[in-house]
């Protein structure tokens, strides 16, 4: 019930504060463009390394049958590229972390101030930065597991295509979605400890909020697909008009839900 009340309240806050919605959407749009500019060269280099590593590993597996993927990865020929891959991942993570700290710091401050909470942008930036340190480790672990799952799938589909299944890749994607909702609660609560405590104390609300936000974004995705069906160039303005306010709504909704005394 509280989930729906918070959702309605967040919607009315958005309607009452169009300037905040525009500011938040601008920050998100700039962050997306900045991430694209900074991450694309790193991502290209990453793909280059993955192609080299998967070629070398599948070559070694073909030559020495029965060898495990991990032992092939640690062979001297591959190890150099694997080390560079790890550094590239760290760089990509740092790029993402810096952009997240700046954009999310500003945007969560906007979300809090539109709910009449007292907030200073610099304090919010520092709060997000503190959380980003812990979350970087979690994201790095999940990303590396996902990368290994992808690599395993590529190598198996090269060596024995009949045995290639996407089971592990699907599990990693599921974990990523759950972690996204946990991160939203942490950001809304302002600290990892307070956010985690809230999740354990309000399991039903956490689940309900997850289902609601997933439904909203499924609807947004349907709308964007419909817009793309009408006209391809219409997708960009439709995305800006629908997706970014939906992101702002999600922030206000989570701040309202998690903060005590805002709605109760």
């Amino acid at each position, binding site marked *: 019930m509280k989930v729906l009340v918070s959702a309605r309240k967040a919607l009315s806050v958005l309607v009452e504060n169009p300037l905040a919605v525009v500011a938040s959407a601008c920050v998100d749009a700039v962050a997306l463009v900045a991430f694209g500019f900074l991450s694309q060269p790193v991502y290209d280099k990453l793909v280059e390394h993955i192609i080299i590593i998967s070629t070398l590993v599948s070559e070694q597996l073909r030559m020495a049958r029965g060898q495990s993927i991990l032992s092939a990865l640690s062979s001297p020929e591959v190890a150099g590229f694997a080390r560079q891959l790890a550094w590239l991942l760290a*760089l990509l993570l740092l790029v993402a972390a*810096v952009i997240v700290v700046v954009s999310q710091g500003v945007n969560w401050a906007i979300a809090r101030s539109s709910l009449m909470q007292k907030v200073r942008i610099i304090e919010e930036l*520092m709060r997000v930065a503190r959380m980003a340190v812990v979350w970087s480790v979690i994201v790095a672990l999940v990303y590396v597991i996902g990368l290994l799952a992808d690599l395993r799938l590529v190598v198996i589909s090269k060596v024995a295509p009949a045995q290639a299944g996407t089971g592990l890749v699907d599990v990693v994607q599921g974990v990523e979605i759950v972690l996204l909702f946990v991160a939203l609660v942490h950001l809304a609560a302002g600290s990892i400890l307070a956010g985690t405590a809230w999740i354990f104390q309000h399991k039903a609300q956490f689940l309900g909020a997850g289902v609601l936000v997933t439904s909203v974004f499924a609807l947004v995705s349907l709308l964007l697909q419909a817009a793309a069906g009408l006209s391809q160039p219409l997708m960009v303005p439709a995305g800006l008009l629908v997706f970014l306010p939906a992101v702002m709504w999600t922030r206000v909704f989570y701040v309202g839900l998690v903060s005590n005394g805002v709605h109760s």
Partner: protein
Amino acid sequence: MQSEQADWRVVLREVGMKRTEIVFLVVLLLVVVLLVVMTANLDLFFPTPGPVEFAKAAINRTGAA
């Protein structure tokens, strides 16, 4: 020297920022500059063999030549 430090404290207090906040902002700016420089010069930091070199190395490894 001491009076200069005191002046800075007064300026910080008037702006409403603590020293840790200023340090945080400076570090953030430096990291952004570092990232921009690194991503613009990736080939320098992470060299990879070109397609021809890679093919030659593969032929040497497998002995297919």
